[in-house]
């Protein structure tokens, strides 16, 4: 009886290990975890998307997706600042300043990537513009997917999360903060 229970527990642990996404290490040349985001990634500066890098991506990854979200805002939260998916598995990150022109080509290393619709209702990165009062947290979440899902353009964060459900084999994030002072 005891051995049967142990076997069942071991099987459960093995199953959990198989289903829990592998932790991806996310970093950035310009963002520092839990530190204030540089102005250039906000509308107080050039409002360009930050460069990201990642490692420890599962070997079986077929494509990646990134979402930037602010759980301190939105109705309901989070407020979404960026959605980009269809990123090739070969990519080691995202370069800075992904084009805001829908007609512009994606950088070669992420050719084929698509920017989805943010909370600003535009398919581009728009940085933090929180109301003055308290710092907000900006989560840049990276998802590794086990299949090429051929996701169509125009997906919101909710659309994307629904589409990738059951395909996430790796996940990680870097969190930066930003606060606007009252004028």
């Amino acid at each position, binding site marked *: 009886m005891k051995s049967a229970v142990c076997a069942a527990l071991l099987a459960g642990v093995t199953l959990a290990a198989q289903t829990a996404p592998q932790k991806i290490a996310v970093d950035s040349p310009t963002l520092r975890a839990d530190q204030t985001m540089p102005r250039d990634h906000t*509308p107080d500066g050039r*409002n360009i998307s930050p460069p990201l890098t990642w490692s420890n991506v599962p070997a079986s990854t077929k494509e990646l997706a990134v979402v930037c979200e602010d759980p301190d805002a939105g109705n309901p939260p989070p407020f979404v600042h960026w959605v980009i998916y269809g990123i090739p598995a070969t990519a080691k990150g995202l370069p800075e300043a992904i084009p*805001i*022109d829908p007609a512009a080509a994606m950088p070669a290393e992420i050719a084929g990537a698509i920017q989805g619709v943010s909370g600003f209702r535009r398919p581009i990165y728009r940085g933090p513009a929180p109301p003055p009062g308290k710092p907000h947290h900006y989560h840049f979440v990276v998802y590794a997917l086990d299949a090429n899902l051929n996701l169509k353009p125009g997906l919101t964060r909710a659309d994307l999360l629904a589409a990738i459900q059951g395909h996430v084999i790796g996940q990680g994030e870097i969190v930066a903060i930003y606060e606007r002072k009252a004028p």
Partner: protein
Amino acid sequence: MTFISRRDLLKRAAVVGAAAVPANAGRPFQGRLNEADGEPERLALRETALHGEAMAPREPLENLTAAEADLVEAIVARLIPTDANGPGATEARAAHYIDRALGGALASSRQTYTSGLAALDKYSRSSRGKPFTELSATDQDSILIDVETGAATGFTGSSAAFFNLVLNHTHQGTFGDPYYGGNANFTGWDLVGYPGIRTMVTAADQQRLEKKDLRSNHKSAYDYEAFTKATAQNRSRRSPHKEGA
């Protein structure tokens, strides 16, 4: 970046209709230069123009200062851009329409333009390090998106309200009747395939229109004597003090 895609533009124009310009939106050209009003924000804009490169001769403005007019020109050029698909708000002279109309039907918006343009230029300098007119098209688009989404700072109220006001006036200046100072050479109507004002449409015209083969007659409503007479009669019944208000 094409700030408003040509496809979106055509969709919107189809909804708005080519005649969607308020009656009496413009007024006869008066040919006077705008006087300084002493407001610090306007002075700052004007100073930029004075210290800039040698300026080419320009037609006299009716209401905007030279620096404000340059800024409006730059804004409308990004809202309805000139691109591979054809001319835009620049060729339609939407800024000219706005300048004229701010002394007429849009006079109530004059102060909003004064403060909004000054705020936009100040925001451009603080966030991108340059006046709006000196930025690349991509950076100008980025600024305008920030203004549109309400993320830009320094505006009285939400910057989105100012954006919507200017966008609306840009549509009027591009697609309204040329009589009011915009839609120069029927640029806007040609852009959306509007065949021009007609007092009569024959069955053959209707068939050509449905086949998108009806060529524009490039006629304004004011090219028709009947319309002009009716307008003159209506104006004569009004108080002259209300004219253009």
